[in-house]
């Protein structure tokens, strides 16, 4: 119930976002699907499904994705551009979600930093993960600390460890690290 509702609400955030431009691989996969469907009716349904699956895997449609809770530990995975995160937080607060944590991840091979926001609900089991990526050399994400006051410390912590600047945060001073710390220990290229 709640899952469907929040999924629909969060889908609205994708309205302005253009679909990711198709990579050559995707179109090949799609062509393959067409070929498999068109020539004969003998094609086994399983094969068709497989081909469709392959196409879907190559280009997932933008939007919230339901995940396998038993395997992953969360229900909804929402990949958003950074500037949409505050809007998503507002939607979640309206549905009475609470914030559990913010986790940074350093994807050094992609030259990107990721922030993963975990939300949970007090009344019904529904874990929502909002994730966003930002340029590793100039990591900036708008703050949600004015929406969820609890995010204040989580964002400061993420700034401590990864150097992600949360734009609009009232006080981005080191929290867990010493007050004069100018290093970010969880970056993969950090040397003590």
């Amino acid at each position, binding site marked *: 119930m709640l899952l469907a509702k929040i999924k629909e609400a969060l889908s609205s955030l994708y309205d302005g976002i253009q679909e990711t431009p198709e990579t050559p691989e995707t179109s090949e996969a799609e062509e393959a699907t067409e070929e498999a469907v068109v020539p004969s009716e003998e094609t086994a349904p399983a094969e068709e499904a497989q081909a469709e699956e392959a196409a879907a895997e190559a280009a997932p449609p933008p939007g919230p994705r339901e995940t396998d809770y*038993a*395997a*992953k*530990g*969360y229900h909804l995975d929402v990949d958003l551009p950074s500037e949409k995160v505050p809007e998503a937080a507002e939607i979640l*607060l309206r549905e*009475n*979600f*609470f*914030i*559990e*944590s913010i*986790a940074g*991840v*350093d994807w050094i091979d992609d030259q990107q930093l990721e922030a*993963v926001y*975990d939300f*949970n609900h*007090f*009344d019904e*089991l529904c*874990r929502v*993960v909002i994730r966003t990526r930002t340029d590793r050399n100039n990591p900036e994400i708008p703050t949600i600390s004015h929406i*969820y*006051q*609890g995010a*204040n*410390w989580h964002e400061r912590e993420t700034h401590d*460890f990864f150097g992600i600047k949360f734009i609009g945060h009232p006080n981005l001073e*080191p*929290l*867990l*690290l*010493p007050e004069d710390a100018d290093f970010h*220990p*969880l970056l993969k290229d950090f040397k003590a």
Partner: protein
Amino acid sequence: MNGLLQQDVNQETFTLNLGPQHPATHGVLRVKLEMDGEYIVEAEPVLGYIHRMHEKMGENRTWVKFLPNCGRMDYLSALSYNHGYVATVERAAGIEVPERAEYIRVITVELNRISSHLLWFGAFVLDLGGFTPLLYAFDDREQILDLLESVTGSRLTYCYFRFGGVYNDIDDSFIAGTREFIKRLRKRMPMYDALVTKNIILIKRLKDIGPISKDMARRYGATGPVARGSGINFDVRKHEPYSVYPEFDFDIPVYEEGDSMARYMVRMDEIEQSMRIIEQALAKLPEGEVKPKKAIKMVKPEKGDYYCAVEAARGSFGIRIVSDGTNTPYRMKLRSPTYSNLSLFGEAAKGMLLADALALMGSLDLVIPEIDR
């Protein structure tokens, strides 16, 4: 007051440092207070005095080698942290756990929860100026430490759970000792009730002091007894059942008032509920193995990220791991409950008397090494 008093004659308010070395902060927490006479205008907790970067340690050792770290964050309910970590890795790597091991996990975790609440009870009343209950509480807690020492080998920083089971099976003397202890504590609880809970001084110090609303708990992500004292029926053991908790019949104490007294009552009631769980688990304890035949030394969870939460003594403890498919975690995020619970202190303490704010802080049940990690 143990702290640095700074006063500017041109200012109406003054700054007061509470801690980092102060008995009421239970460790090394510093709170910067802006005071107007006895009243708090602004309160800002300053963290990090005991920060050890457990998350980085997670990235430079194997999954197995991180196990001892879990006993060194929340040193009062270390087994919950053990449980949270092994449950996360078991979910990620698809490791089966024998039923008997899950029962033993629940029994020891609940014993640990009682010992944590007993210590909190003693220390909290000590914060409020009552010395005696601490000694009684430590007497009871000592029995639990002895029991847990006999199976885990340590008294505080447990490292008892392993991937796919527990380190050691429990024996008859542990079972008999646990039953004996529950009988003893059941007799002691009415005494605590008469001596402390119904004490008029305690009631006057806690009733209607430090209110935390439902809305505030939600905005800050407060969990555990802090949320349940604000009328939120949220306990990971029921809400998101893990291990063998669905097998047991127990209640979640919830109080609507949201004041320090409500948080006090939640924890006192939880002691009884934990005893109920232990009794049922001992009665139903299945036979069988408690660990895999060959110890799991190499874990390689599939690429991806995983989340798992458990109910620790102070609230929801969650771990988010990111695996790159190797023997070493790519990222290990530790979500400690008190970090979120303390973050609301600044807002909740505004306008309170200093002495009342200390009662509020005590009712949050802080363990600093868990906040700082």
